C-alpha cells in the first residue's frame, strides 16, 4: 500500500469517524432533550391528574359532608331502628352526585348502601379500625359492587347524635369517565390500573390504546415497590415511555397505578431522520474527504515521491541526482538535506575513486615490482657471473656466457610474458555479441587442454546439458575466461585430480560450472579471489580470475565460487539468455 493510499485512507477514516462522532453526539443530545420534554409533559399530566384528583376529592368531600349535615343523616343516626332507612342511600347518592354511598351505623353495620343495596346489615370493620376520620380528606379505597370491586375516591363523614353515631361513606368511582376528564396532548395517553385483585387483571386497566404484556410487569413492579417508576416499552416507532405512579389508599396500601404514556414515535422519526441526514452528510463528507484527501495527499506526497525517485536514482549509481526544493517546510528541508547528502556522497565517491585509483596504482606498482623483480634478479646474477667469469675465469667465460645468454633470454621472455599479460588486461575490448553454443565452446576449449591435462594427471569430464540454450556472448572472450578457469583448476591440482566442466539450462539462461578436486579455498580466499593481482599461487600475475570476472561482468553475468578447504572449488558463471542485449 502506497504512502498516498494510506494517507487517503487515514483522511477518509478521520472524516467518517468525525461524522459518526458528531452524529452520535447530536443523537444523544436530541434524545436527552426529547426525554426532558417528555418528562416535562408527563409531569404536567401528572400535575393535571393530581389537580383533577384534588378537585374530585373536594367534590366528594363536599358531597359527603353535605349528606352528613343533612336531616336525613341525623334522623338515621338517632333512629332506634334504622332499618326503615335502608333505601335512603340511593336517593342521597343521586342527589349529591356520588357513585357510591353507604350509611353505616356506629357499630359498623351498613344501614343503607347505594352501590349495593342488598348489603344492609353487613359490617364495614375498616371504618372502626381506622378510628377517628379526619374531615375534609378524601382517599382511595376498594369498594365492593354487586358485579365486582371498584376503585373509588372516597370520603367519610361522621354524624354524631348523643351516643349514636353514623358514618357517611361516599365516593366516586375512578373509572374511564374519570380518565376522560384529563386533557391529553397528542401522542400521550393515560391509563389507570385498579388493583382490585391480588393478581394482575387485564380488565382492570382503563384507558385507550394497546396493553402489552410488559405493561403488566411495570404495573406489578410499581405496586410492589410503591414508588414512581419509569420505563420505555416497545420498540421503534411503537415505543412508549411510561411514567407509573402508585395510588395509595388511606392505609398506604397501593390500590392503583396511574400510567402516563408518551409515544416515542416522534423521537424515533427524529432519530430516523437524523440517521438519514447523518448518512447523507457522511457520504458527502467521505466524498469530500476523498477529494480533499487526494488533493492534500498529492501535495504532501509529491515531494516525497520526488525524494523517493531521487533516492532510487542514487541507489542506482546516479549520484549527482538532486531534488527540486519547492517549499521551506519539513519536506523542503528534507529535500535540501537530500541534496546535501548526494553532494557529499558524490564528493566522497570521487575521493574514494581517487583513493582507490592511487591504491590500484600502488598495487600495480607493487605487483609490477614483484613480477619484474623475479626475472631481474637472475638477470643480475647471470650478468655478474659473466663479469666474474671474464675477469677471473676467462677460460670458462664462453661456457658461462652461453649459459648466461640462455638464462638472460629465458628471463627476458618471462618479462615479455608479464608485460603481455598486463597489456591484455589493459586492452580488454568490448564484447561482440552473437549466439554462442556453450556446449560446443566447452568442447573446443577442453580439446586444447587435453595434452596439458594428461601431463598433469588430471581427468577431464564434461557434463553438458543438451537443452542448454544458445546465449548471446562474445565467443572469444568467453573462451578466454574458460581457459583461465581451466588453467586455474590445473594449477589447483598439482597432484592431479578431476576437472569437471558443466553446462546447465537455467530458468532465465545458462549456468557454466568449472569444478576441480584441488585443495580448495578458505572463505577469506574466496572473498578476495577476484581482486586483481591477488593470487594464492606462488607464480602468476593474479590477473586470471580478474579477467574472468571482467568478461562475465561485460556480459551482464554473475560469477561465484563455492569451495571449502580440501574439497576443491567450483566456479559458477550465470549468463542470461539475452546477455549482452
Amino acid at each position, binding site marked *: 500500500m502506497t504512502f498516498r493510499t494510506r494517507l487517503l485512507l487515514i483522511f477518509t477514516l478521520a472524516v467518517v469517524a468525525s461524522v459518526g462522532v458528531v452524529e452520535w453526539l447530536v443523537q444523544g443530545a436530541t434524545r436527552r432533550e426529547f426525554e426532558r420534554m417528555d418528562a416535562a409533559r408527563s409531569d404536567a399530566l401528572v400535575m393535571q391528574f393530581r389537580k383533577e384528583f384534588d378537585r374530585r376529592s373536594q367534590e366528594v368531600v363536599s358531597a359527603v359532608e353535605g349528606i352528613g349535615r343533612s336531616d336525613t343523616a341525623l334522623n338515621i343516626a338517632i333512629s332506634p331502628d334504622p*332499618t*326503615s332507612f*335502608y333505601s335512603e342511600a340511593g336517593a342521597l347518592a343521586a342527589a349529591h352526585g356520588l357513585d357510591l354511598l353507604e350509611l353505616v351505623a356506629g357499630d359498623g353495620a351498613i344501614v343503607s348502601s347505594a352501590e*349495593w*343495596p*342488598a348489603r*344492609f*346489615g353487613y359490617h364495614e370493620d375498616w371504618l372502626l379500625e381506622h378510628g377517628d376520620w379526619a374531615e375534609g380528606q378524601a382517599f382511595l379505597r376498594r369498594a365492593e359492587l354487586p358485579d365486582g370491586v371498584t376503585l373509588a375516591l372516597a370520603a367519610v363523614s361522621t354524624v354524631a347524635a348523643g351516643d349514636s353515631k353514623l358514618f357517611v361513606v361516599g365516593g366516586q368511582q375512578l373509572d374511564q369517565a374519570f380518565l376522560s376528564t384529563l386533557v391529553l396532548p397528542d401522542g400521550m395517553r393515560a391509563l389507570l390500573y385498579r388493583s382490585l385483585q391480588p393478581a394482575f387483571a387485564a380488565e382492570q386497566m382503563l384507558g385507550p390504546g394497546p396493553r402489552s404484556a410488559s405493561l403488566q410487569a411495570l404495573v406489578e413492579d410499581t405496586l410492589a415497590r410503591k414508588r414512581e417508576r419509569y420505563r420505555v416499552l416497545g420498540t421503534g416507532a411503537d415505543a412508549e415511555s411510561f411514567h407509573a405512579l402508585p395510588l395509595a389508599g388511606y392505609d398506604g396500601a397501593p390500590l392503583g397505578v396511574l400510567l402516563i404514556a408518551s409515544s416515542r414515535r416522534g423521537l424515533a422519526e427524529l432519530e430516523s431522520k437524523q440517521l438519514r441526514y447523518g448518512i447523507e452528510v457522511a457520504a458527502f463528507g467521505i466524498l469530500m474527504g476523498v477529494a480533499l484527501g487526494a488533493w492534500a495527499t498529492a501535495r504532501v506526497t509529491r515531494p516525497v515521491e520526488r525524494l523517493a525517485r531521487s533516492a532510487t536514482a542514487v541507489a542506482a549509481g546516479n549520484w549527482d541526482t538532486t531534488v527540486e526544493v519547492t517549499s521551506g517546510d519539513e519536506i523542503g528541508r528534507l529535500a535540501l538535506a537530500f541534496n546535501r547528502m548526494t553532494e557529499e556522497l558524490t564528493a566522497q565517491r570521487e575521493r574514494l575513486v581517487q583513493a582507490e585509483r592511487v591504491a590500484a596504482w600502488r598495487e600495480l606498482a607493487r605487483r609490477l615490482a614483484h613480477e619484474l623483480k623475479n626475472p631481474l634478479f637472475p638477470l643480475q646474477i647471470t650478468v655478474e657471473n659473466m663479469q666474474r667469469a671474464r675477469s677471473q675465469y676467462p677460460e670458462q667465460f664462453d661456457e658461462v656466457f652461453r649459459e648466461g645468454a640462455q638464462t638472460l633470454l629465458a628471463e627476458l621472455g618471462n618479462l615479455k610474458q608479464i608485460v603481455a599479460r598486463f597489456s591484455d588486461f589493459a586492452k580488454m575490448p568490448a564484447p561482440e555479441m552473437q549466439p554462442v553454443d556453450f556446449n560446443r565452446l566447452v568442447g573446443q576449449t577442453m580439446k586444447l587442454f587435453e595434452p596439458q591435462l594428461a601431463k598433469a594427471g588430471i581427468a577431464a569430464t564434461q557434463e553438458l546439458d543438451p537443452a542448454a540454450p544458445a546465449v548471446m556472448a562474445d565467443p572469444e572472450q568467453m573462451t578466454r575466461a574458460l581457459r583461465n578457469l581451466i588453467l586455474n583448476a590445473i594449477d589447483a591440482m598439482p597432484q592431479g585430480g578431476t576437472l569437471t566442466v558443466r553446462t546447465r539450462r537455467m530458468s532465465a539462461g545458462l549456468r557454466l560450472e568449472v569444478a576441480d578436486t584441488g585443495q580448495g579455498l578458505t572463505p577469506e580466499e574466496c572473498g578476495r579471489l577476484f581482486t586483481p593481482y591477488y593470487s594464492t599461487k606462488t607464480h602468476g600475475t593474479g590477473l586470471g580470475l580478474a579477467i574472468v570476472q571482467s568478461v562475465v561482468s561485460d556480459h551482464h553475468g554473475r560469477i561465484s565460487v563455492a569451495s571449502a578447504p580440501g574439497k576443491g572449488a567450483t566456479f559458477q558463471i550465470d549468463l542470461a539468455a539475452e546477455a549482452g542485449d
Partner: protein
Amino acid sequence: MCSRWLAVSKHCNVLWDRPPGLSTASRRQARRPVPLLILLALAASAPAATRPHYGGVLRVEVRQNIESVDPPDTGPGLADLIGAFSITRWEAGRRASYAADDGAPGGRPFLDAVEVQMGRPLRDQSIDLEVGKAEVVELGPGDARRGAAGRRMWVSAPVRIVALVFGPRVEDARIREGLALAVDRTAILNVLLQKQGEISAALLPQWISGYAFLFQSSADLAKARTMIAAAATAARNLSIGVEDASFRAMADRVALNARDAGLAVTAAAPASAADVRLVEVQVVSSEPARALAGIAAALGLAVPPRMDSVEALYNAERAMLDGFRVVPLFHLPAVYGAAPRVRGATGISPLGQWKFENVWLEGGRP
C-alpha cells in the same frame, strides 16, 4: 262486619283445637290467636258509624298482569268480585271493569263499578294513591310502614308465600340445601320487608297449619359453606330470577348471602329461565289441606292423595320440601292502601280476598 270477623276468628280458633302429633309448646303456639285479625276487626268497626253512600267507581291497581278472567288465574281479588259485581270489560293483562250487580245475593253493592288496572308497579301505585288516581292500591313494605295522613290500610293474614324454587338444572341437593341455609331471613324481614310477615321454612303459614315453626328457618352459614364447598365448582354458579320486580331487592340479598356461602349467583333477566326463581304463591284457602294442595299445584309439586290428619298434612308438606327443590322463606300479608274517601268495611278478607260489596266512596251518589 262483625259476622265476618267472627267467621274468621272462629275459623282460626277451631281449626287446630288438638293438633295431633305436636308437642305441648307447639300446640300452645298453634292455639295463639292472630293479633292482626283483632286489628282488622277494630279497624272495620270504625267507619260503621258513617252513613253509606251509593255510587262511584272504585279504582283499584294491582301489580300482576292477569291474563285470564277465570279462576284461579284471576289473582287474589278478582274472583271474589263475582257475585256482587259482574264483569263488563276485560283486557287481558291490562285492565278490567266490573259493574255492580243489582241482583247480588247480599244485595246491591254500594259502588257502581270497580275498575282494575293491572301490571302497575308498587311505586307507581303508591303515587297514584297519593295523587288520587286510584282508591285502592297494593302497598310495599316501605309504604306500609311509612303510612300517610288519612290513608287506610288493609292488611290480611300472612297468605303470600315467598319461596325459592330451583329449576331442574340445579341437580346437586347440597347446592340447594346450602343456599337454603345461607339465606338470612331475619335481615330480609327486618329491612326489606320492614317486619311485615313471618319468617318460615314451611309452605303453609303458621296460622293455618300450626306446625310451620317445626321447619328450620334459621341460617347456618358455616354449614352452608361446607355443603357448597363439597359440590362441584361448575355447580356453584347459579342465576336467580324474579317474577315480580318488587322482589328484586330480596333476590339481590339472597344472592349476597349465597356469595358468602361460596356460590356465585347472578341476576337473571326476568324472562329467562333462571336456575333459581324467587316466587310468590297465594294461599287460596284457610283450610289446610286445600291450601297445601293449592300451593303444591302453584309450585308444581306433587299433591299427596290423602291429607286428612295433621300428621298426614305435616308429612305431606315435609315430603314436598325434602330435597330443597322449594325453599319457603316468608309468609307475607296482603297489604292494601285505601284512599281516605274509601269508607265502609275492610275491603279484604283475612286471605286477602277483595270484599268490596260493603265499601263505598265518600262523595258517591247521595
